[in-house]
């Protein structure tokens, strides 16, 4: 089986400061990988580097493209990379307003990716948008409302619909449940899990919330100071952490 994403020795520096370094892993179709670590550990830098938002100083990020199999997205041309990022890739931001157009209706937000890949039939675009609002549990009569009038959880679900409408194969998520109420988080987690399974999505989720990765991620990487200090099966890393930092992280979580 070909990995969907093959990350090899990725390094990103900010001047002399390490953003992240020496990161390698394979992600297979349908797999969900969690990346945990505290603020400044390099997990967001890594995610943005993998997603093509930052250019790594070293290493390769190979993606199994539909046309040509594994291609290094770091060295591919920018138009190709941007095309990937609005077709086969998706990026869910922590703050929905970074991932949504706040002055465009919900339907327009969902439809944008369709129009970006050439959809030119208003009726069909609207029907697809309406279907997706339903799938992320937003009432279809909100289709012409702007996201500014939505609650935080709704905005986040709208962002997810906007990202998944083109049927991507890989989703990058940066703290997707951050800043949401616990009950809203649960709903979102449930939604994400179902979508991941129904669509056979692979996902890379950055979070500092260990409960989130336990429920969503098959595998886990723990980052500290730009390095991956431990990785493995999610429940194994959480229940039998080997590295001192991971042990500290796990033991620091308040049990409810």
């Amino acid at each position, binding site marked *: 089986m070909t990995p969907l994403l093959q990350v090899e020795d990725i390094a990103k520096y900010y001047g002399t400061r390490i953003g992240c370094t020496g990161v390698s892993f394979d992600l297979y179709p349908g797999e969900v990988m969690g990346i945990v670590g505290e603020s400044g550990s390099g997990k967001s830098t890594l995610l943005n580097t993998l997603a093509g938002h930052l250019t790594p100083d070293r290493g390769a990020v190979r993606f199994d493209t539909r046309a040509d199999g594994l291609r290094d997205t770091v060295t591919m041309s920018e138009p190709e990379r941007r095309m990937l990022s609005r077709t086969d890739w998706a990026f869910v931001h922590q703050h929905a307003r970074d991932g949504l157009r706040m002055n465009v209706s919900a339907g327009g937000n969902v439809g944008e990716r369709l129009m970006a890949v050439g959809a030119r039939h208003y009726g069909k675009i609207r029907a697809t948008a309406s279907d997706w609002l339903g799938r992320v549990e937003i009432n279809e009569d909100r289709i012409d409302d702007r996201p500014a009038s939505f609650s935080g959880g709704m905005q986040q679900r709208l962002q997810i619909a906007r990202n998944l409408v083109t049927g991507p194969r890989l989703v990058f998520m940066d703290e997707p449940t951050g800043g949401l109420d616990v*009950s809203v988080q649960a709903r979102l987690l449930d939604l994400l899990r179902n979508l991941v399974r129904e669509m056979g999505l692979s996902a890379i989720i950055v979070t500092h919330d260990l409960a989130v990765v336990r429920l969503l991620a098959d*595998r886990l990487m723990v980052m500290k100071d730009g390095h991956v200090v431990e990785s493995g099966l999610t429940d194994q890393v959480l229940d039998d952490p080997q590295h001192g930092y991971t042990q*500290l992280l796990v033991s620091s979580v308040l049990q409810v």
Partner: protein
Amino acid sequence: MIRVENVSKSFTLHNQGAVVIPVMSGGELSVAKGECVALTGASGAGKSTLMRMIYGNYLTAAGRIMVGDLDVARASPREILMLRRHVLGYVSQFLRVVPRVATLDVVAEPLRAVGRSEAEARDRARELLAQLNIPERLWQLSPTTFSGGEQQRVNIARGFAHPYPVLLLDEPTASLDATNRATVLALIEEAKARGTAIVGIFHDEAAREQICDREVDVTRFTPGMAA
């Protein structure tokens, strides 16, 4: 189906002066198809540890743990995930689910994960929930709000939804009343009859005697506790 050979395990507590706590050495176990083996030994002897090592939940420091053709002690996460999805089931004492998911879907999930249709998976889930006397009015609710005993039964239903060839059972009959206990034991017998290899921890001695073919006392693998 399960062959554990000379395994050892220790915990290193990096944040408490890097204390190394050896918890197992020379662990041996073998379970054939259709066989049920009980792990025994005092509390803290390492019954759960061994079971978690077989499941891949704990890392194994040395030795081999063959489940079918896969050495869990050396397998990649992806291989273990595939093994857990298709071959290796685990009924733990605790139910860990996404808070909002309906009980019916929690139980149906293992079948969905191996590609069964939603209808088929839910039918099987209904059958098991009914068998385990979970009132139908609770099926659409999340089990997170259930009593301990109800959660335990949901967990069992989930563990038996897919006919795993290998099953790990951690106290499956604890906190069950007589009727439900009998149902669980019947489920275990059924699984044995279709060739499932089972490793279990049973504090319930009568249950143990009724369904287990052998007992393995893990105390002899416990460093400093050898009987």
